[in-house]
């Protein structure tokens, strides 16, 4: 099976899982008694969170490999992961805001998880701004790699400090802990399906974008080789 066939299958699988997830969230699982129907956002919020952080981790890992091996492929992967991750991080913040309004009455609250996500979003934004404001050279790729590594190293400290910050001054209302207190097995099942669906969606989008960037890099390398060849033909030797 070649690459585009794999991507197509991935796309179909994503579609199927997404449909299943939507069905389960809106038709199958019972909403939690306390928070009502708004609580259903939780089934999107949690998988979005996992994907946003995982993508960020991938940016850093790709960065390490790029610095170590120097192959443009790793930079393309990192850049694709940053763009994809930014999408999911933005969705997560939006979802968090939509959740906050009916539950807490405000569009935003500095609870520990939303704050950490916001910081992550800013780091993503910084990475993308850096790549956008510099030319497409190996040095820029190195910059991106270093930034990605540095930012990821920071994430655990961000989580720890924000949690400590919020313990001392709790936010308006404490966020419902995800994963604990899911009494109904239907809730667990729905959550798992949603996580799987969003993960697949992430992988699929990532592969699409990665393939685009990779193709672009390879075309660039090919163009350089053609330039050399035609110079050789024109100029002798």
């Amino acid at each position, binding site marked *: 099976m070649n690459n585009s066939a794999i991507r197509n299958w991935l796309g179909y699988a994503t579609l199927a899982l997404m449909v299943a997830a939507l069905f389960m969230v809106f038709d199958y699982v019972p909403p939690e008694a306390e928070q009502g129907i708004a609580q259903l956002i939780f089934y999107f919020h949690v998988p979005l969170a996992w994907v946003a952080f995982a993508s960020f981790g991938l940016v850093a890992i790709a960065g390490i490999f790029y610095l170590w091996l120097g192959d443009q492929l790793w930079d393309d992967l990192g850049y694709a992961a940053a763009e994809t991750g930014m999408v999911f991080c933005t969705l997560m913040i939006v979802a968090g805001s939509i959740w906050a309004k009916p539950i807490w009455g405000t569009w935003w609250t500095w609870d520990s998880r939303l704050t950490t996500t916001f910081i992550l979003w800013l780091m993503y934004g910084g990475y993308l701004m850096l790549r956008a404001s510099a030319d497409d050279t*190996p040095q820029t790729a190195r910059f991106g790699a270093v930034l990605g590594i540095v930012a990821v190293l920071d994430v655990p400290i961000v989580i720890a400090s924000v949690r400590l910050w919020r313990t001392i001054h709790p936010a308006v209302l404490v966020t419902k802990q995800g994963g604990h207190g899911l009494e109904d097995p239907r809730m667990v099942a729905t959550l798992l399906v949603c996580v799987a669906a969003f993960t697949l969606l992430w992988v699929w989008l990532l592969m699409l974008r990665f393939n685009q960037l990779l193709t672009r890099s390879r075309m660039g390398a090919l*163009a*350089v080789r053609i*330039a*050399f060849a035609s*110079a*050789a033909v*024109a*100029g*002798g*030797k």
Partner: protein
Amino acid sequence: MSAPVVETHSLAKTYGLAPVLREVDLRMLAGTGAFIIGGNGAGKSTLLRMLAGLEAPSGGRALIFGQDTRRLAARYRRRIGVMAHESFLYPMLTARENLEFYAELFSLADPRASAELWLGRVGLAEVADARVRTFSRGMEQRLSAARAMLADPALLLVDEPFASLDHDGAEIVASLLRGAIERGASVIATAHAVPEIDGVEFAVFEISRGLLLPLVHKEEVRRGRIRSLLGR
């Protein structure tokens, strides 16, 4: 047969889609000098930067003292002196302070003495304690030469060493280059046209359409035939 000081294998460089240098093969032994000539934008400075390890090649490799220029260890960098269009000098420091700084970076035993010595050699002893900001271009160039040769390098890479120099300045730099070769160092220099340096033989190459080609045999340089050959 000693190992070459500088060696390149199919060295190539593109800027975007324009190949600036291609299939450059060069071998230089110790105690030899080479001039690379070419017009503006021919790629002379690019070649020198790649040899110095400041720029990565698009293809092929360059070796100095047998080491890949992209990963040159500190102990090899200690033996290389580079003179470029930029002087690498700090305008707000004095000439002496600049040289002492570089002497310290290159771990010379007595930075003060080395700085003093070289200031004399390039004829800047009187302005030793003036800030480089006040220098003319020619004076800065001479100080840059002193900076490059301060640590008695085994390899000198000089980009257009005689640019912006008056006759006296050019004489000074020429004699410094000659002295370096006589001491067994290798010199690779670039220029627009081959200058006259008495008393030393050097090979001459030309960069033309991205290729490095030997221009003339060194004997012909001494006999002055180079002028007519270059007279296009």
